């Protein structure tokens, strides 16, 4: 992923979105961050004409209407979008959520920590890895 490739965040929690934004700023990651509070809106955006696909999707699981797992299922069933890596960023430590996320093709699973410093270190791990890793597109 290049430093100019956008990162897409889907999270209905405003403070969590602010945490991600702030962490990226502190890490001096130049990737533009696109934030969606609803999974349907994100899907609609991704399917829009002439949209530059994000290099990475950060996905919350517990959201009203379409939840994270439903979004993941739709994304991975779409031949145009299935190559985009998705990292789950959630509060859930439930074994079921973890197992299902990976079964549906998630590239990673991170539990949102309490406290900003820990949040930054989680984000550093994600950004460092995906900046180094080659992507499909």
């Amino acid at each position, binding site marked *: 992923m290049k430093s100019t490739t956008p990162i897409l965040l889907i999270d209905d929690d405003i403070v*969590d979105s602010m945490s991600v934004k702030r962490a990226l700023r502190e890490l001096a990651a130049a990737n533009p961050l696109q934030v969606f509070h609803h999974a349907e809106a994100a899907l609609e955006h991704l399917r829009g004409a002439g949209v530059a696909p994000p290099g990475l999707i950060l996905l919350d699981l517990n959201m009203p209407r379409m939840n994270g797992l439903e979004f993941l299922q739709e994304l991975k069933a779409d031949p145009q979008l299935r190559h985009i890596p998705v990292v789950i960023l959630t509060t*859930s430590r439930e074994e079921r959520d973890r197992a299902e996320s990976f079964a549906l093709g998630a590239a990673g699973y991170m539990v949102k920590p*309490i406290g900003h410093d820990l949040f930054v270190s989680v984000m550093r791990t994600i950004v460092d890895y995906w900046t180094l890793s080659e992507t499909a597109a």
Partner: protein
Amino acid sequence: MALNEHAIVAWTDSRGRITEVNDKFCAISQYSRAELLGQDHRMINSGHHPGDFFRVLWQTISQGAVWQGDICNRAKDGSFYWVKTTIVPFAGPQGRPSRYIAIRTDITERKRAEREQARLLGELTHINRELNQFAHIVSHDLKAPLRAIGAISGWLAADYADRLGPEAKDQLDLLLGRVRRLDALIDGILRYSRIGRTPEERLPVDMAALSAEVFELLAPPPGIEIVIARDLPVIQADRTRITQVLENLVSNAIKHLGRPDGRIEIGGRTEAGHWMFFVRDNGPGIERKYFDRIFQIFQTLSSRDERESTGIGLAIVRKNVEQCGGRVWVESTPGEGSTFHFMIPHPSSPSRFS
């Protein structure tokens, strides 16, 4: 005849017409002998069984084979009763059955108990599912606002560092500490509620190897003497549960030792019908009046401000041991140390309760 004393008996001819019944048959069906003779068993048909049921029954016995099964019948007053039934054909001159004897035992009470058990099991499954959902909701819905409080107080401390006095900074630190504590409590509830939700898997567990692993994982500070009895048995148990028991007992011992030259010992042996283990420390010990309370969820003996502790560890120990059908208890002398004992029954042991 002993049979008449023991069972409900009826004879029929080749077409199933009743030719003879004993007193027990009359008693349970509430029909007199005169009412029954010459009739067939449709008289006491409850309508509970599908038509196929009796067709198979007739096919079996008319071919000369014995039929066995449970039948629901209806007595004269309309009440239902269940009978465990054996029908034996008797061959006539042409080799085809000419008579049948039906021997029955009243199992109405057993059937009622079975139904009650199925109902209770259904109820239990339902409650369990609700509890599962509850834990899930707690993890998501309580944690999101908590994380926000933690995040924003951290930002305030960072963004206004030059404008906040030392008192305000201390207060923000206290706030963040409380957020972490509440987070640990929620995690504790979740861990506690997860015990027993996964099916038990009984495999050989080498307690000596497991004890060594637990010490390695928990890494007690240097200077603490660790003793693992050399002859610890290999037991048959659910490894996850036993690991949680040892981890919590050992981490408790480490946390509460309160001396640099402490000593923690794991011992155990095989006894008739069960295995006995203990985790012993030479820490401050526990007063007798607290022996029960320490195993209750969220009970701590020191204020949470003195020592950061959720009070979930021993509750998790007890729940895990009880899920294995065992027991856990403590012996302690204040000033000398504590010994936590736990008993795990052999899989075949009748003393196993769950």
